[in-house]
């Protein structure tokens, strides 16, 4: 709900105040984009502003694609994307500021502890519709996915599905939180969310024999990892440069680890 509001505000702002699109004017730095990165960016901004009291950092949501678009149009200096840039977006400079694991989650009562990646793919493609062939009960699988345009969905599509489509009949929710909520209350459900958001209400499945842990991500055995990107038009300069340097500094990266993400340095 919150990000929808944030996006509304962003869209309204963009629509009503075209005069404010000028980047770099005044002392404010604006970040916009992925709602997955937003809470972390808020943390960074908070700490950063304590050290730099002379100017404010403004963090807005809107989603990865909207962030990239806003960055390109100059509505913000830094766009946030929780998926890799696509072909047409490669003209922008992308800096990996953290990495995030993607967890495939099921209800805690589900007897299945792990799946092979091709099975996950077939489940989300709608080819496997029952838990039975996977070693579970003879019940219909409830597949939960994110909406089109979501960075989390984009990353899952790229890492697991490849060219195969997520099937039409999948239940579609608009945030990590609601996906977790649905899976937490439906014993037959399967979904995917940010690894940092997995809690006791759901269980993260092992993939191809590797449990979804930070350790397995670091040593490369768990391969559902997506980058958190900061993008900008050309090499970031001025305030944007300072902020990115802070995020990549030891202090900034420590915040990343504390919040359940993986550092890049």
């Amino acid at each position, binding site marked *: 709900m919150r990000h929808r509001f944030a996006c509304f505000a962003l869209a309204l702002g963009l629509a009503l105040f075209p005069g404010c699109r000028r980047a770099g004017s005044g002392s404010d730095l604006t970040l916009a984009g992925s709602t997955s990165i937003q809470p972390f960016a808020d943390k960074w901004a908070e700490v950063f502003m304590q050290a730099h009291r002379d100017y404010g950092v403004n963090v807005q949501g809107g989603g*990865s694609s909207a962030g990239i*678009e806003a960055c390109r149009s100059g509505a913000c200096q830094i766009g946030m994307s929780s998926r890799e840039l696509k072909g047409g977006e490669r003209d922008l400079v992308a800096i990996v500021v953290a990495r995030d694991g993607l967890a495939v989650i099921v209800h805690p009562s589900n007897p299945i502890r792990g799946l092979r990646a091709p099975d996950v793919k077939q489940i989300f493609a709608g080819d496997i519709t029952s838990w039975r062939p996977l070693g579970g009960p003879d019940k219909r699988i409830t597949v939960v996915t994110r909406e089109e345009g979501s960075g989390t969905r984009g990353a899952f599509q790229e890492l697991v599905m490849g060219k195969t489509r997520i099937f*039409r009949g999948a239940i579609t929710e608009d945030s990590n939180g609601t996906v977790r909520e649905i899976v937490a209350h439906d014993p037959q459900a399967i979904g995917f969310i940010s690894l940092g958001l997995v809690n006791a209400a759901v269980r993260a499945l092992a993939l191809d024999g590797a449990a979804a842990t930070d350790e397995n991500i670091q040593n490369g055995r768990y391969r559902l990892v997506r980058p958190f990107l900061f993008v900008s038009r050309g090499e970031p300069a001025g305030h944007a440069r300072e902020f990115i340097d802070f995020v990549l500094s030891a202090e900034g990266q420590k915040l990343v680890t504390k919040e359940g993400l993986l550092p890049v340095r």
Partner: protein
Amino acid sequence: MTGAKRARAGNRLERNDRLIRLALLVVAFSAVSVLLVITVFIVGQGTPIMFRYGLKSFLAGSDWYPSEKLFGLWPMIVGSLAVTAGALVIGVPFGLSCAIVLTEFASKKVRRLIKPVIELLAGIPSVVYGFMGVVILVPFIRRAFGGPGLSVLAASIILGVMILPTVISISVDALQAVPPSYREGSIALGATRWQTVRMVLFPAARSGIIASVILGMGRAIGETMATIMIAGNAAEVPHSLLAPVRTLTSNVALEMSYATGEHREALFATGVVLFVIIMALNTIANATSARRRKTQ
């Protein structure tokens, strides 16, 4: 002297009158022009893409994959109509019986107590209905009938409840507006209370009752928040009452936050389709009620 004075005063009053009329006219037309601006904006934003990809693939296509430039709205059109029909099936009988009881069979005291309560129901935000649906109704449906619980059925029930206040209060007003002489005449001829309701009051209040159903339908088809929360939002034509479904309104609200470029235009096109459907439903409903009134 006094005559001239009176004439001047009369002139002033007349002038004031004209001014007030003009002011009211301006205000009234600005309200209408807002509607016009909205219509022009939505149509302007949404129609080009429909013609670029072909009206047929837009309206009859069943693949909604905006990132692959596939914009088939058919599942959402069916979804909206299915959920609205479901809401009416549930809401109208309950609402009408409630209205009849309140006007004809309940005591004045009961009526005075219940009517404000029903009107209060209309004030509950839809997100609260949606939340109750997710917490209570969806798990119940999953346990009792199977499936994911998020379904046409769940959405129909919640929307059915949501349209109750509209259906009830307007029907009550319509039934109460029937002149007492009709009622008295019917009773005097020896009809029972139920016969009076069925043969006299109902036909007399028909246009009001139809209006209540139309307004309820409008609320059901336009409802977004509750639907997103309980319908499951799968962009597929529902094959049963227990299948998840996505409505046109959900489609817009769900993807709005991430949509750029053609995806965004496609969401405006979704709005255009919704607009046309609502206009068509209203026109049909108005036409039927008008014809019935004529044949009476």
